[in-house]
């Protein structure tokens, strides 16, 4: 179909509403006024139906051929009635025999200022309900794709499973109870911000990945050397601090344990990250990333070569505590100075060896690290990382009741066919009752 492929989806001139999260579509939706079909005598009934059908078909599955939709169309409109168990227990149905056969009439009084109109069940808004059964449109409704066309693309490219089996027909009609899963990477690509073309990190990753890869270990090595130097100084101090060793000092286990100085540095950096915790800026996140990068070799020194970011904090926490324990006697002395000399000594003691993180700070750091772990910066992804929702997404965000979606696994269950209720219909359609009614009448083929 070359004609359909060449047609532009979003236009500002003579706009059409589409199943898409485009900003142009939002603008068109915002400025759309009631088309007022059938309000005057200028149009014949045929013309009214023609125009209404055109308005709605532009939205409902414009990528589906008219012939296909005509085959799909059903004049049978589904609806439900809410049955209150309490009412049903109190009445057996015979109360409906009163009046004209549908219960006693509630007559409004003449003196009432305003007579509320009886609520209707908008059956006509269900005109395009059979469309909602289609797999591609259900994927769009579950918010796994930014447009019905994109959803179709995902299906065709084998990114979608129905009940655990790859389904490559976008026209597959879901049955109640069917579960569909979309590849999470595709969903993140569809709903995330696009990757910046000229972004520095992206360009680096694409142009010279080996340079990048080289740079990182180099930095790590430098840091490692620093840490080792610090350990050396520490090791030289150890025998002095412990005069009670009898023969010769044991071989220092400096290479097994992270040093005080290294931990101090880390905690200092963590503090500096948390100092600007009020608004999480890009630079702060970069800082956090470098913090994690520094913490990793430290932990690998501690014998954990495969440490995940969440482990890091626990480990760091325990290290800080260990250091505290070693200082515990001194601390106790400081708390209870028995003699003035001791008190003076305590005062003259160098400031606490660790810039200790308090509980709140640790929690905040843990939260930041967890966020970083959940949503990492990854230049290999085809979307902007860390992932952020795309622009102009929130006005389109709704999930109809006939779907149950679990966003974590990018899966959804088609619970049942959409239905009409008193005062509401489940088919998401941009136009109201009258226009849907005209379109429904068009497809009844009695024109």
């Amino acid at each position, binding site marked *: 179909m070359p004609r359909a492929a060449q047609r532009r989806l979003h236009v500002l001139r003579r706009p059409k509403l589409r199943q898409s999260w485009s900003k142009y579509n939002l603008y068109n939706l*915002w400025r759309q006024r009631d088309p007022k079909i059938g309000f005057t005598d200028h149009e014949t009934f045929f013309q009214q139906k023609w125009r209404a059908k055109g308005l709605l078909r532009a939205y409902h599955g414009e990528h589906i051929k008219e012939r296909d939709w005509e085959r799909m169309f059903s004049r049978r409109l589904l609806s439900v009635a809410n049955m209150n168990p309490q009412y049903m227990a109190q009445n057996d149905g015979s109360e409906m025999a009163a009046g004209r056969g549908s219960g006693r009439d509630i007559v409004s009084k003449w003196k009432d200022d305003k007579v509320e109109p009886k609520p209707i069940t908008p059956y006509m808004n269900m005109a395009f309900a059979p469309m909602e059964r289609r797999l591609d449109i259900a994927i769009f409704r579950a918010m796994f794709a930014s447009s019905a066309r994109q959803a179709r693309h995902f299906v065709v490219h084998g990114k979608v499973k129905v009940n655990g089996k790859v389904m490559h027909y976008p026209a597959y009609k879901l049955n109640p109870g069917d579960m569909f899963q979309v590849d999470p990477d595709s969903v993140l690509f569809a709903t995330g911000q696009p990757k910046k073309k000229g972004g520095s990190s992206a360009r680096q990753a694409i142009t010279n990945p080996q340079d990048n890869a080289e740079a990182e270990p180099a930095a790590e090595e430098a840091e490692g050397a620093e840490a080792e130097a610090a350990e050396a100084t520490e090791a030289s101090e150890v025998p002095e601090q412990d005069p009670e060793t009898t023969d010769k000092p044991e071989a220092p286990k400096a290479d097994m344990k992270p040093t005080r100085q290294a931990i101090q540095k880390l905690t200092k950096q963590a503090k500096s990250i948390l100092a600007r915790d009020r608004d999480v800026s890009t630079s702060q996140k970069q800082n956090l990333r470098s913090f994690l990068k520094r913490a990793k070799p430290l932990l690998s020194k501690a014998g954990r070569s495969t440490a995940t970011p969440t482990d890091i904090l626990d480990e760091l926490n325990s290290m800080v505590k260990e250091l505290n324990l070693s200082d515990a006697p001194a601390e106790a002395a400081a708390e209870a100075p028995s003699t003035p000399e001791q008190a003076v000594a305590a005062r003259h003691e160098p400031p606490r060896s660790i810039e200790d993180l308090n509980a709140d700070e640790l929690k905040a750091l843990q939260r930041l690290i967890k966020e970083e772990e959940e949503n990492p910066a990854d230049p290999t992804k085809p979307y902007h990382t860390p992932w952020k929702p795309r622009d102009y997404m929130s006005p389109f965000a709704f999930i109809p009741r006939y779907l149950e979606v679990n966003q974590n696994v990018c899966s959804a269950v088609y619970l049942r066919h959409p239905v009409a209720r008193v005062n509401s219909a489940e088919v998401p359609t941009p136009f109201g009752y009258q226009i849907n009614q005209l379109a429904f009448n068009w497809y009844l083929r009695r024109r």
Partner: protein
Amino acid sequence: MPPRIPTKSSASSASALVRSSFVSPCTSQCLPSCRAGFSTTPSRERSTNLRRAFLQWTRTIGANYRQPKPEGGPNYLQSFGVGPNKPFPLNPQFRSERVLDEQARELIWEKVMRRGETLKAVSAELGVDLTRVAAVVRLKEVEKDWISKGKKLATPYSKAVLGMLPTKSFRPGVQNQPLEPINELHIHTATQKQLFWPTAESRQFTREDAAKAFHAKMLSADKRVPHPELIQMEKDLLKGMSPDEARARFINAAEQSERKAAEKQQKKAMAEEQATKKVNTPRFEFRFKEVDSELIGKDGRAPNVVGWKYGMPHYDRKKGLVKIPTSVP
């Protein structure tokens, strides 16, 4: 054609062109426009009034919709006379309904899988549709499976989407407001026609009788609703039974009905299993079933007839016919 006012850039590009006659044309100073043609002026970007209005909108009103609300919650188009949670300004009959949040889903899973409560009891307690309860548990199981396998969840996406939607959460151990009506009755097509059904005025014409009037085999509304046990519970309460006792009876009835359904399903599966003979080969599993070729219906055209019948074409491989599966087991 609009007059082209030579801008600063075009002047510089002209000078670049002069220079380019001496230097190679693809230097960094050369503008992209001078690379292709002979024109010295850069083409101006096409802009219409419509486009300008659109850009103006993105800077003013549209800016509110660019990002989700910082405090969370829905951010639908605001327009005059349209209530909250209506994404389409011209369709007041479509509402964006609340969805269960993470905590609510976890609670439902916990109740069903850990505490072993029946789906019906959970549905009635929390006011969540029966099919939705089952779906939540099913999806949660997939999520747990992913976690146990170390597969990465789409957590940032989930957080962002749930932040844009109206959500519903439950407090455990307290009476909660329901999410949706749970006892909805499907409007059967047979009940949509008007009937002229003369009866004596003195007669109690109940729902049971109405169902019989519509169709001989139709069940009454009391039996067709998803929670007939709830109606019984209300009847018990009306009789003066204590709420605790009525509740216990309801839970018992729900358990029994679910057990009955499970047994029925199991029986069916067992019968299917017994009727099938399976032969495993390295590549396929062959399944053989006994079929009576004489069961062809009255006119020999029954829909599930096996084998080829004279005069009955099989369309399943014909060109141009739809071969999209109608169900995935």
